[in-house]
């Protein structure tokens, strides 16, 4: 107290500390969502309320030993991160501070300047000195895979007054001067406001995830949104890891939000080991990991999801297709609830703040296919895991999220207990992208897709309906045709929808191979139905060894289709022998 800032205004001091909630005296110049550094350790925090001469900050670090009387230093600008080529392959905390630079244990990290980074990246100029450029125009490239571009930042335009020659530069080196403003290899950017675009476009091209149940039944478009709700043990994280590894996006931003430390370690280790099938490089090189495990400061989860969206938009603006995977949005919502409770806000449903729905909506709205300021097309697709307490999908986070997303991949506990993975329920999931993707002109090289999807869905629904009946009267009491529907449902589940994340051949599946497998299983199901015209023949058909068909998905490579036809023919031949 008594200290004076360079501007002559007395420096404010902390008056109250309750966990991540810190109050300090308001001074002119403190604005909502401004960054503030708290106490001698300069813990970063964000101003979230100003009232009666007291400003409230949410701290993004452990506030142990922070005491009333300690200084609070408002920074006069909102929470900002630095976006640049150093992001790819890196692991960061919720404020985008590199974790590689930290030690074994994360002690209360300071909000001071980041450590010096001596790494350099290649830069090739594309514009010419003297060109007149506007925000979003390309100044130069950072060659690599994916190839990055250095753009004129938003709010900056004019003649290119200076442009660095081709060479290697550090992240904070200036590479151009535009209209008097220096442009660096990496740019600062606020995390709360979406980055500007020229226009939003309608999502039309599919994101191929490599997971059959999704690509076939519940596809998602580039620029779409997906919620993945599932109780614990249903394989949410495993499914999201699979998508992070195998989906055909240019850049993946993986946000571990209040989840397990071992899982983060696992995903980091796997990405650094696996090869990107499209580029031959490591999967880690196209991935940005934002890690906020459940033992790290809770409020950083809140910053983390917005940071991730900002990082995604940065790559999108270069014309890349980006996928953000947030695991889990429920932990973020819990951080919101925790802080609202400490603020004394009136609780709405189950103690969550009334603003929960609008917070979720604002996050998912950051997904889009856009025409960028520079005129190219890029997309951000958002996948959010939801962890409903007790597996209850009517709880507020799940219920609100469902309203804002275009796809829902609901994970089913019964399927998971039967070790049917991925445990995506065909009855409870939906994809509002399926219809536009089937119509869409672009990227649609398979006219049979809708018909195949409809047949698979119909057979699964029929088998489900009959399963209830079978539980009551036994399979043998059903007419042969119905028995064959039950059998067909089983073949679809085991031969097509189940997918082993651990089998190298089955971990991912190309669209052509998915189609081949679906067609093979449907052909066998048809043959079964034709063969079983009496109860006795139905008995025999049920005893046929379908193993070759059911194993086809785990044999041959993820892109090979030849073996599938052979397996189908083997089983069809066996059916022919049924008497």
């Amino acid at each position, binding site marked *: 107290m008594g200290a004076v800032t360079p501007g002559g205004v007395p420096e404010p001091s902390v008056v109250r500390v309750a966990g991540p909630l810190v109050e300090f005296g308001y001074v002119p110049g403190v604005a909502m969502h401004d960054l503030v550094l708290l106490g001698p350790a300069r813990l970063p925090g964000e101003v979230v309320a100003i009232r009666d001469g007291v400003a409230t900050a949410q701290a993004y670090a452990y506030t142990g030993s922070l005491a009333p*009387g300690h200084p609070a230093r408002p920074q006069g600008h909102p929470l900002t991160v630095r976006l640049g080529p150093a992001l790819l392959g890196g692991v960061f905390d919720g404020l985008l501070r590199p*974790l590689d630079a*930290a030690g074994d244990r994360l002690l209360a990290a300071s909000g001071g300047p980041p450590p010096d980074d001596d790494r350099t990246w290649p830069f090739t100029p594309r514009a010419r000195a003297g060109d007149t450029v506007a925000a979003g125009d390309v100044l130069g490239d950072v060659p690599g895979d994916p190839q990055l571009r250095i753009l004129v930042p938003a709010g900056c335009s004019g003649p290119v007054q200076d442009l660095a020659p081709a060479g290697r530069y550090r992240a904070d080196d200036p590479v151009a001067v535009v209209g008097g403003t220096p442009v660096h290899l990496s740019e600062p950017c606020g995390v709360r406001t979406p980055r500007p675009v020229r226009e939003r476009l309608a999502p039309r091209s599919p994101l191929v995830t490599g997971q059959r149940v999704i690509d076939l039944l519940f596809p998602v478009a580039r620029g779409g949104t997906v919620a993945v709700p599932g109780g*614990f043990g249903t394989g949410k994280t495993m499914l999201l890891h699979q998508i992070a590894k195998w989906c055909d996006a240019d850049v993946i931003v993986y946000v571990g939000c209040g989840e397990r430390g071992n899982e983060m*370690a696992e995903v980091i280790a796997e990405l650094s080991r696996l090869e990107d099938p499209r580029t031959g490089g490591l999967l880690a090189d196209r991935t940005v990991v934002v890690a906020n495990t459940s033992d790290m400061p809770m409020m950083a989860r809140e910053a983390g999801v917005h940071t991730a969206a900002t990082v995604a938009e940065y790559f999108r603006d270069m014309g890349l297709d980006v996928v953000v995977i947030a695991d889990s949005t429920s932990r973020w919502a819990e951080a919101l609830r925790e802080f609202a409770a400490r603020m004394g806000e009136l609780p709405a449903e189950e103690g969550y703040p009334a603003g929960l729905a609008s917070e979720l909506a604002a996050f998912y709205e950051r997904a889009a296919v856009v025409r960028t300021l520079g005129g190219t097309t890029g997309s951000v697709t958002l996948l959010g895991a939801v962890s409903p307490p007790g597996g209850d999908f009517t709880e507020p986070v799940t219920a609100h999220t469902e309203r804002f997303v275009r796809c829902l991949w609901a994970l089913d506990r019964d399927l998971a207990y039967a070790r049917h993975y991925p445990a995506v329920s065909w009855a409870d999931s939906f994809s509002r992208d399926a219809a536009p993707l089937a119509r869409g002109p672009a990227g649609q090289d398979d006219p049979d897709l809708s018909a195949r999807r409809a047949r698979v869905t119909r057979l699964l629904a029929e088998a489900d309906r009959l399963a209830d009946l079978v539980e009551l009267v036994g399979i043998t009491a059903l007419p042969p045709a119905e028995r064959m529907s039950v059998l067909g449902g089983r073949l679809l589940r085991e031969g097509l929808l189940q997918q082993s994340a651990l089998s190298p051949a089955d971990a991912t599946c190309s669209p052509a191979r998915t189609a081949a497998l679906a067609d093979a299983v449907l052909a066998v199901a048809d043959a079964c139905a034709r063969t079983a015209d009496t109860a006795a023949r139905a008995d025999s058909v049920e005893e046929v060894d379908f193993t070759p068909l059911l194993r086809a998905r785990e044999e041959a490579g993820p892109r090979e289709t030849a073996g599938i036809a052979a397996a189908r023919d083997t089983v069809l031949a066996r059916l022919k022998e049924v008497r």
Partner: protein
Amino acid sequence: MSEVEYTAVRELRGPLLLVDGVAGVGWDEFALVRTADGAPRHGLVLEVDRDLAVVQVLEGTSGLDPRRTRIAFTGSPLRIPVGPGWLGRTCNGRGEPVDGGPPVFAPDTADVAGAPVNPVRRTPPAEPVLTGVGAIDVLTTLVRGQKLPVFSAAGLPHLELAVQIAAQSSCGGEPFCVVFAGLGLTHAEALAVREGLGERAAAGELVLLLNTADDPVIERLLTPRIALTVAEHLAFTGGRHVLVVMGDMTAYAEALREVSASRGEIPARRAYPGYLYSDFASLYERCGRIRGRPGSVTVLPVLTMPAGDITHPVPDLTGYITEGQIVLAPAAHARGVYPPVDPLSSLSRLLRSGAGAGRTREDHPAVAAQLIAALARARQVRELADLVGQSALGPADRRHLDMEDAFLRDFVAQGQDENRPLDAALERAWQVLLHLPAAHLGMLPADLLRRRLRATGGPGPAAGPGAPPPGRAGPTGAEP
């Protein structure tokens, strides 16, 4: 350490003490509360608002007189001594010896709250901790660095199982020890734990912390943190593989709820505080392995599901943090099976990291997966048989029922002091599986199955090894 003592106690409520006129007191600081008579008590600062501090008294506020109570703040969070001096000791829930020995002495101290582990410095768990309990070692393999809870219900032998695991576990000859934190145990239970683990304690491989049901509730918030702090040091500095058994976590959550209620916090589900998940995570996440350091911390929390409800916040939030769960089933217990493990709702997510060639045995993951799949089928058949009678079942279905009976009788059931080697448990698993025709063993790699069938002269694809023992169609309809 600040020598200032404050006396202006404004309020005493539940476990909380509010003191006025403090200066320079930080959040989460450790405090000493002195009374005119009796031992000093310990407290933690939950909130500081200008000159008012809210202190949570770990021994409870019973007997405190606001006029005759003095509070001193230490200027730092609570630290405890750490080191091998803890091994072989038995202490109460605050870490004070109850074995008649001197206080635990160690040159190093550590903050009981711990610090988050940098996720990029973690090494993914690998290599098993073998518990000598066949059903766990084969089906839900415990992996070094994992957190795997036991979900139980009132009346089930979870404490016996926890003690058995603590007494028998080993890490293939590498340095190993157990930290056992009893939370809210009855005195009879505490005695049983001390007896069951006597040998391990004598071998200097055990740290025992016992918080009993009649100890101050609030103390339970501290016990698991002491256990984990001691364990972390034994593991990452001492180079041991440490298994931390903590239970009953439901009693811990109740203590947390009590403090939350006294503070007038807005309750979330079932009146537990909204931060129950994060609080659990701050305990469970302290397991793991750290790159470049020897040792590991494996956490085995034990909890009872109130009214057997797995959607209750305590098991539910635990399940979201832990890497799987071992679920005990009343139905199996009623049939007299110990340990009454429910194989289908139990899961070790890290089984593949801890089991397989070079870790346990090459056939282990496939055998576990096949056994689970067959049991899932058997359960469906069982439900059907209850409705339509066994006579309406096909031959393959009946074989599945036989297999399920054999599973409980020959594979799961085990004596409370029987330390079953993994090889023996896997052999039993094979015997159980061979009740099924080969066509129903599709998850076993074909060559593995062929080799096994040739070796045992077992069943061909059609016929079984003679008639399997007549399966007792037990009263199992009530299994969850």
